């Protein structure tokens, strides 16, 4: 069960992150004008938001590039391996009639 403070904290965080509906925003504006308790909660949520944001580490550019290359190259290599197997298995059979024609026309001078 959500208490009043929890509801207000959710409203405050939603307001900071701009995820509230138009109706909820109106409620927040009303609370800002009328409720010192809500103002304190909003202030705390802003501070927490700021502090927590500082925990995020951006990805180093070289790592970002390297991981992308590893994934795409690996998948291309897998694709090539699959094609190789397909060609190895199917090409000799497909080429047999052509090869026979070649044998007859060139080697036997038909």
């Amino acid at each position, binding site marked *: 069960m*959500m*208490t009043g*403070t*929890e509801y207000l*904290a959710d409203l405050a*965080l939603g307001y900071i*992150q701009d*995820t509230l509906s138009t109706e909820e925003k109106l409620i927040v504006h009303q609370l800002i004008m009328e409720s010192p308790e809500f103002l304190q*909660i909003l202030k*705390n949520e802003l*501070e*927490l*938001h700021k*502090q*927590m*944001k*500082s*925990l*995020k*580490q*951006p*990805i180093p550019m070289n*790592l*970002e590039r390297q*991981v*992308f290359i*590893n*994934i*795409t190259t*690996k*998948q291309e290599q897998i694709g090539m391996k699959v094609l190789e197997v397909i060609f190895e298995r199917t090409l000799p059979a497909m080429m047999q009639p052509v090869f026979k024609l070649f044998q007859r026309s060139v080697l036997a001078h038909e």
Partner: protein
Amino acid sequence: MSFDEIYQAYVDTVYGFLMFKLRDEHLVEDILQETFLAVYQNTDNFKKISSPKAWILSIAHNKMVDHLRKGYENEHSLVTELVADENHDFSNNLFLQEAFGQLEDTARTILYGLYVEGLSYQELSLILDIPEGTVKSKAHYARKKLRHWLQEGSK
């Protein structure tokens, strides 16, 4: 959306999340690669997913749990790392840091998701594979504690 676009849009989010959880660059690199490999293999289904960020983070979270189960568990807790990392802004706030250290791991993850990534309770429930009600109650308990310590710190 092509894989290239998906990667550009979410790689920073996944890296930040994994670093927050693990603080081990090599392990994070491995899991990051496995995560986006899984995304690459599902690029065609991407447009059907309602919350891409939550979906990708849930893959990352599952991969991380798999790694930890295989015995890669990092012995350093987040708090130890935070205290040791002098460049970390967060460690300057001793009250908040202490409060954060008293929270359980899931609660810390929920707070990170809420405040840093702007995730909803529903999305966090999907990522952590726990009921939405549990996410809410853990979040409220943790935020209450942090608010209290924040107020103590400002006195």
